[in-house]
């Protein structure tokens, strides 16, 4: 199935906007849910139920003074948020959200791009995003920003190993790196959450650390680091870093749905709706975790990543391989 180029253009515009809208309302939902969990209202002044809050935030961020720290390296200082946000947005391209349709005689695929190396492409783009964080912290020439970016970098590379290893079991069972084939395989056999429950837990914990979410939000531990790598950023440039983080979170949740919960498959409802429902459920768990769990200390974080998560992920991969070969 091949698309006409203009179908791809329309679809790209739609998907980018849907992802950005999800990001905007994710910030609102997060504040609302956190508010309710802490027995307060959360934002409720802008529009009904505070629904216009993300738009008000956007206008506020755009109107902020264009600000440079005196010692910053200007070009890199400006490029860093763009790198982070671009790689975060681009990574969503490989996520399948539907079976593909024929609309008015035009083929429309259920994802932006279906390549045999989809999973590796996603991880590669995610790793490139680290450059944005470290360049941003370094180029702003500030003590806290530099410390924050070093921490971010060390944390991201540490947990990336466990993250990539935790999906190895899924790759072995799905016999492919293509996300569409993994989804199809799950529909044909069983949702991989059942045989790969250990893999799911490892993936989820490592993913929380990869996206700098509580309880692993050490890079922006405000009590010790002010704000981490974006201490010297303000206005929309700070907004872009926030955008990168939230979109990374959305992509990771989407990947979780794809790898362990059979992606867009489900009874009665059409594919994309199932996909969004599952995605929202996972995102809710992330918010829930943020309100529930206290932050770790940095040495605990690193020890946990290397001494607990990595062995578990490796053993899970080897055990999966053993059973897959045994059953065949």
């Amino acid at each position, binding site marked *: 199935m*091949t698309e006409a*180029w203009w179908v*791809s253009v329309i679809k*790209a*515009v739609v*998907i*980018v906007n849907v992802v950005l809208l999800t990001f905007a309302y994710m910030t609102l939902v997060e504040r609302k849910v956190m508010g309710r969990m802490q027995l307060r209202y959360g934002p409720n002044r802008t529009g009904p139920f505070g629904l216009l809050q993300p738009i008000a935030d956007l206008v506020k*961020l*755009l*109107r*902020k003074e*264009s*600000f440079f*720290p*005196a010692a910053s390296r200007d070009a890199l200082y400006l490029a860093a*948020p*763009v790198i982070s*946000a*671009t790689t975060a*947005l*681009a990574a969503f*391209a490989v996520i399948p959200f539907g079976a593909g349709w024929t609309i008015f005689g035009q083929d429309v695929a259920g994802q*932006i*791009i279906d*390549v045999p190396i989809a999973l*590796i492409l996603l991880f590669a783009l995610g790793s490139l995003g680290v450059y944005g964080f470290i360049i941003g912290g370094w180029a702003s*020439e*500030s*003590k*806290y*920003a*530099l410390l924050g970016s*070093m921490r971010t970098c*060390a944390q991201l*590379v*540490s947990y*990336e*190993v466990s993250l*990539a*290893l935790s999906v*190895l079991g899924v*790759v072995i069972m799905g*016999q492919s*790196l293509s996300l569409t084939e993994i989804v199809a395989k799950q529909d044909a056999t069983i949702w991989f959450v059942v045989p790969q429950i250990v893999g799911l837990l490892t993936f989820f914990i490592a993913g929380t650390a990869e996206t700098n979410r509580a309880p692993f939000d050490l890079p922006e531990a405000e009590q010790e680091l*002010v704000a981490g790598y974006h201490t010297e950023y303000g*206005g*929309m*440039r700070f907004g*872009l870093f926030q955008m990168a983080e939230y979109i990374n979170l959305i992509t990771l949740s989407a990947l979780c749905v794809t790898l362990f919960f059979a992606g867009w498959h489900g009874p009665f409802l059409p594919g994309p709706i199932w996909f969004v429902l599952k995605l929202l459920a996972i995102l809710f768990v992330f918010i829930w975790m943020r309100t529930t769990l206290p932050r770790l200390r940095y*040495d605990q974080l690193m*020890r946990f990543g*290397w*001494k607990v998560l*990595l*062995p578990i992920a490796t053993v899970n*991969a*080897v055990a999966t*391989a053993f059973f897959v*070969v045994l059953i*065949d």
Partner: protein
Amino acid sequence: MLDKWLPFLIYGSLALAIPASMIGMSFLFATKPQRRSRARMLPFESGVSTGPPRQQRFTISFYLTAMLFIVFDIEIVFLYPLAVILNDLAWFAFLELLFFVAILVVAYVYVWRKGALEWQ
């Protein structure tokens, strides 16, 4: 080949254009401050200004982590292709996997015993 990657090219350029235009807009719509004071342009130091940390040193642990990452990331790079064809090669592939992981476990135990996994 290019046909297959064209949608990604379109989507990717859009993903680049949106953040870049937002940076542009952060200049365009920015409010001008009444006057620029020097103190505002200094990096945030929470009181004591020591200037930018040009010569700052970091704990050795950061470098160790980077090296460990390279070692174990190579593991993943080799294991992924094997995982895809594991079913076709059956026991041969599994033994290869076991052999490969065993070598890594030796390195892992060594690193653990040396205390490189502890954050100092």
